[in-house]
């Protein structure tokens, strides 16, 4: 039976997309500068269908790309031209929510925010909160170890995933971790998280839920310069307080947010800093008094406390809607995701400003300052010849800055296809060999998300030569 015939027997026509018009929405993700048309898109409705599809791909040597909501900013869900896309949005059931054990077992297509909605009646929530949380899926979050505004205190997705059931690229189904907070033996659950789809497809994910904090205090401070806001972050961190969030937006980002959602940020400020403390009421009150003392020393033009939930929601609406708001200022944009040591935030921002002037390309900054995780938004017009290339070059310079400062090329958006070329700047050839070998050990044919994360393997590349020799598999010979 041919691959196409096998797919036809597995999926009804409505869930097997092959017409160009049907495929168009899947050709790209939120890294819109790139697109590629897959040979088909399948819409499974059960884990069994996903497993069966992966087995077919394995049998017929057809590469596949898993897709959640396609909000990847690094081209992670970009299709492979001769491969298929396995779109997981219909696997959107919360299989079990156990308030006593404080866990939720979910399918990969469940939208991040829906977990929190389901947990809310029990006073619980799911902590990782990427700004895309109203649409992005848990499967995508797992693949990218996604972050959000509250990583400083609560960590990334990996810190909240207790167990994963997955299908490996060879069709084997595995169960990693469980319901306990403690792993035993190699932390394979944590290793699967952030593997950008290269280890196969997550089918069921066990998430840890947290009790809703009793008290939240959100402060918005405005500054006359970005550097002053950066220094304020250093002061808050040094004070020994552990805020849940420490976020900065620069002038351009503030203006954009004001125009689009009217968040009530102080007009004309060069930068705003959002600080959020949360926890037990008794602790937060004491910490808040401390925070006020610290903030007084930072030379803020204005410090505002969100008086109620509505005011807090408004502050966060501006912050979380910043990407799309800034997007309106420009026909196209690239979001970068570099990380620098927190003490080097100020100088890095100043360098980005200089680069922006040199390239004559506007850059807005909205970022997770407490983590040193920058999100420069590079604004360009793809219709103007050469602008995309200049924007990409500028993006590359920013990544180089981050690497040179001892940081990382990505804090939470993943390498995807976009930043593969920069991996050799961060890792030695040996490091990359080991990652490649780990991938080949699990997926010798590079069927799962070929052409992502690891440099060098092109989406078109033949995979024949990458099979480890049988003696290599047994460890009798090895490549030099």
């Amino acid at each position: 039976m041919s691959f196409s015939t096998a797919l036809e027997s597995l999926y009804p026509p409505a869930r097997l997309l092959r017409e160009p018009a049907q495929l168009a929405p899947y050709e790209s993700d939120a890294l819109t500068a790139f697109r590629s048309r897959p040979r088909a898109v399948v819409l499974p409705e059960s884990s069994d269908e996903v497993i069966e599809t992966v087995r077919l791909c394995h049998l017929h040597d057809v590469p596949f790309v898993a897709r959640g909501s396609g909000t990847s900013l690094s081209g992670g869900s970009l299709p492979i031209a001769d491969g298929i896309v396995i779109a997981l949005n219909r696997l959107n059931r919360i299989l079990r929510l156990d308030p006593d054990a404080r866990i939720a077992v979910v399918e990969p297509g469940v939208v991040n925010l829906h977990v929190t909605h389901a947990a809310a009646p029990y006073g619980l929530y799911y902590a990782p909160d990427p700004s895309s949380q109203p649409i992005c899926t848990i499967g995508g979050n797992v693949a990218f170890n996604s972050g959000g505004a509250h990583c400083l205190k609560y960590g990334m997705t990996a810190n909240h995933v207790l167990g994963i059931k997955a299908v490996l690229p060879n069709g084997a189904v595995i169960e990693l971790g469980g319901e306990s907070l403690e792993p035993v033996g190699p932390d394979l659950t944590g290793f699967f998280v952030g593997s950008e789809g290269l280890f196969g497809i997550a089918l069921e994910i066990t998430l840890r839920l947290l009790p809703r904090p009793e008290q939240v205090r959100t402060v918005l401070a405005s500054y006359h310069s970005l550097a002053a806001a950066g220094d304020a972050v250093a002061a808050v961190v040094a004070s020994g307080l552990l805020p849940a969030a420490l976020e900065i937006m620069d002038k351009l980002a503030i203006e954009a947010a004001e125009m689009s959602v009217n968040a009530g940020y102080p007009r004309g400020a060069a930068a705003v800093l959002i600080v959020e403390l949360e926890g037990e009421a008794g602790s937060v009150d004491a910490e808040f008094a401390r925070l006020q003392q610290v903030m007084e020393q930072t030379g803020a033009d204005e410090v505002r406390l969100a008086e109620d939930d509505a005011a807090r929601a408004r502050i966060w609406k501006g912050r979380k809607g910043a990407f799309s708001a800034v997007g309106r200022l420009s026909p196209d944009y690239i979001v970068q995701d570099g990380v620098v040591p927190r003490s080097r935030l100020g100088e890095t921002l100043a360098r980005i400003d200089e680069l922006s002037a040199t390239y004559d390309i506007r850059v807005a900054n909205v970022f997770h300052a407490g983590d040193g995780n920058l999100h420069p938004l590079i604004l360009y017009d793809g219709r103007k010849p050469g602008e995309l290339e200049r924007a990409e070059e500028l993006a590359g310079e920013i990544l180089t800055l981050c690497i040179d400062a001892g940081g990382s090329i990505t804090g939470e958006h993943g390498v995807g296809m976009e930043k593969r070329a920069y991996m050799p700047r961060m890792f030695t050839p040996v490091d990359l060999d080991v990652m490649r070998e780990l991938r080949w050990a699990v997926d010798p044919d590079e069927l799962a998300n070929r052409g992502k994360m690891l440099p060098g393997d092109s989406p078109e590349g033949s995979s024949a030569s990458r099979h480890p020799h049988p003696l290599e598999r047994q460890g009798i010979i090895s490549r030099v």
Partner: protein
Amino acid sequence: MSAIRNIISATTIEEVQAAVSMIGPPLLARGGGTKPALSQADGVGTLDLSGLRGISEYDPGEYTFTAYAGTPLAVVRHALAEHGQYLPFDPPLADAGATLGGTIAAGVSGAGRMRYGGVRDFLIGVRFVDGQGRLVRGGGKVVKNAAGFDLPKLMTGSLGRLGVLVEVSFKVFPAPAAYATVAATLPTMAEAARMVQQLAAAPVDWEALDIAPAPKGATLWARLGGLKQALPPRVARVQELLEDSRLLTPAEDEALWRRINALDFGNAADMLVKAALTARDIPALDAALAAAGAVRHYSAAGNLAWIAWPGSAHDLDRLLAGQRLPGLTLRGAAAFPLVGRRPAAAFLQPVKQTLDPAGRFPAFEQDAD
């Protein structure tokens, strides 16, 4: 590098690479030797890393540090405390001389993991020597990093069987200025397990929530940490939640958590085993363990069990497997340290084959053939 009988001591990364590249029996790294079941086995050579030590980078303003794997926890604790910082996962056996590398390789966290997570959640970067003698880096030195496979997670709990950790980076947090512990007595372990589950669901920032059997029923210890002035009302509220409870003195608080950190349970001849579970598993497990005469202590609201087991490894393996719980032997005779439910071989085996194709480190399991 010096070698005495079956012990090779390495004080540099190059020496570790040389030792791994030699022809000889498989090797197990040893840091402080506090978890002997993980550093000793029949027919296995010891790679002593206690000389590969020292903090190589620590900038308190960054809340991160990098150190060689053989650095004792106590040294780290002291350096961090000078700046009001700590490793919040409360790595066990600190006073006995446990090292960073051994803590990561064993994948163990202490009672304090309740608050912000375990060793896996704070390790941000590793350098290790794999079975082919290659020096491999994963992760980095910044608190957030999504580039490449998460090798720090893979090495957490790798039991010395995937590579020899040589240098590691952690993120750290500001330490609570003060602590307070409330102790309560409950009629049975089942009720204590239910109670920790309830308490863990309350919006209280618990530093630790432990339970253990007592001569009559069970004892529950709830620890809070934070700004000193905020503690009294917080303690009062906890005491409202817990009938029949008592606030420990600061000295008692300190001594109690030191003892728990020392894993000083049972007799020296017992096996010491960690098991992962949930509070719901406790009633059945605890009854079975009690019947076998084991000493038990449960941390992190019933997610982490410490078992001092007087019987054979085989019997404990059967008992845990029967309850579908995974366990790890830290002390006592064990050819293979994993007991109870095992990790997914379909994923672990290809990883082991890649990093250690020639078997320079022992296997995770008895070979099937």
